[in-house]
């Protein structure tokens, strides 16, 4: 399989073939979930560290379960309980973990480019679990896989991202992956939350959600952060709901088999109405399940590509 990378830092770096390789690898991992023993020994003896500088429950748990289902040893480090609060630099923290023989470090950080710094300074494989407003590659991949699983293709699909595009690493990773795989991307939100240059990435910009939603195959709804209101990026939640909440009425203009996605955690009644969140079109829980399988695939591929010792794959009948 064509995948030979030390790190997964973003989907901007991956070509179509590599993305396809990851997507093609997911199913066997997902099939483990239906067994009573949901584990395989692929990563036995490997040490995986979850280094989270930002609070996160679902992504961290998802990575932890993924690594554990591959029999890796998993260590979780959160900011509040580590020497990070004692002022240790990111690179030193990374080097300490490497000295403890961590094979794979999964990093979540509020500052863009942090995973890249670790990748440059360490031999361990680095997986970006979300860095600032930059990228969240495994979320992008799991969104892509979920769409692929349901629609059996990506090419030609009309996919809409709604909400705060400006501050969204999820949006960024989705755009990179989906446009590479041939989808037609739209974004909708207030101009203050859509970067001016987003059209350079080949997406179409809408300020009117009703226009944007017409004929789409997928609506991916982004979480709106309340603090954006304090930055005057929109006047009030009340107005945001009025203009951009995805409701059943609005979805009437989408394709009948539209998929509703949300990276979570949801603000019900704000960016998404409860009726939409609980509708049969919603695949939000499947995203969570797929997230584990996608992360298993990523962990496996990185671990396999990791120690290149020039040994050829020998047949071991």
């Amino acid at each position, binding site marked *: 399989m064509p995948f030979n990378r030390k790190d997964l830092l973003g989907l901007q770096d991956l070509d179509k073939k590599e993305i396809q390789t990851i997507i093609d690898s997911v199913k*066997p991992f997902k099939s483990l979930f239906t067994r009573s023993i949901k584990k395989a020994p692929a990563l036995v003896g490997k040490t995986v560290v979850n280094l989270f500088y930002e609070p996160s429950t679902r992504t961290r748990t998802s990575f932890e379960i993924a690594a554990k289902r591959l029999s890796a040893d998993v260590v979780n480090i959160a900011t509040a309980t580590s020497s990070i609060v004692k002022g240790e630099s990111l690179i030193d923290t990374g080097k300490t973990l490497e000295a403890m023989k961590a094979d794979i470090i999964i990093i979540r950080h509020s500052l863009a480019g942090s995973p890249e710094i670790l990748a440059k300074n360490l031999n361990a494989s680095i997986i970006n679990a979300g860095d600032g407003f930059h990228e969240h590659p495994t979320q992008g991949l799991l969104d892509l896989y979920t769409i692929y699983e349901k629609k059996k293709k990506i090419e030609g699909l009309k996919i809409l991202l709604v909400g705060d595009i400006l501050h969204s690493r999820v949006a960024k990773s989705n755009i990179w992956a989906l446009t590479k795989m041939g989808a037609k991307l739209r974004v909708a939100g207030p101009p203050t939350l859509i970067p001016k240059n987003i059209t350079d990435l080949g997406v179409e910009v809408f300020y009117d959600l009703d226009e944007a939603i017409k004929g789409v195959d997928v609506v991916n709804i982004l979480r709106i952060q309340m603090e954006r209101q304090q930055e005057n990026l929109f006047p009030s939640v009340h107005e945001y709901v009025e203009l951009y909440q995805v409701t059943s009425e609005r979805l009437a203009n989408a394709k009948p088999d539209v998929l509703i996605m949300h990276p979570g955690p949801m603000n019900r009644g704000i960016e998404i109405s409860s009726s939409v969140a609980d509708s049969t079109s919603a695949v939000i829980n499947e995203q969570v399940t797929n997230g584990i399988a996608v992360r298993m695939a990523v962990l496996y591929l990185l671990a396999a590509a990791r120690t290149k010792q020039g040994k050829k*794959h020998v*047949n071991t009948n």
Partner: protein
Amino acid sequence: MADINKKIILDSKHIQLSITKLAKDILSKNIDISEIAIVGIQTRGVYLAKRLLKELLSIKKIDIEIPFGILDITLYRDDLGEMGADIPTIKDTNIPFDINAKNIILVDDVLYTGRTIRCALDVLKDYGRPKSIQLAVLIDRGYRELPIQANFVGLSYYTKEQVCVELTEVDGQDVAYCCD
């Protein structure tokens, strides 16, 4: 098409004869056919297993459903990280029946070091606790690295040379030859 210089071990006729032999041997050891299930190892073991299943039913001349599964060992290999850039494709594992209390006939094309079978046993272990696991292979080429033995062998052909099996379903023809 195999190179004419290649040493043919089994031609298509003898592959068929071997499958028939395997089927007969399996039936002689498994009186109660209702307890057996067949699991093929990806990739060519799966096609062999399918033929074996057909053969079993035609010999027995009965029309019962013998449970059938496929199994990929990739995630159970112990040489991850030593494979370099050549990462083997992970294929499907699908065992859609309860393996507990079944006599599992595990099928592969060539038995050599025994490592693949070791992986396959680990896979099965994670699905449950079968009554027994029996191994059927088309060719046993010897030179084991683990204490593993086949219960049913089509042809014993001890060689250090690589042995390749081609099957019509994937390769367009039935043949087994030395392919070093």
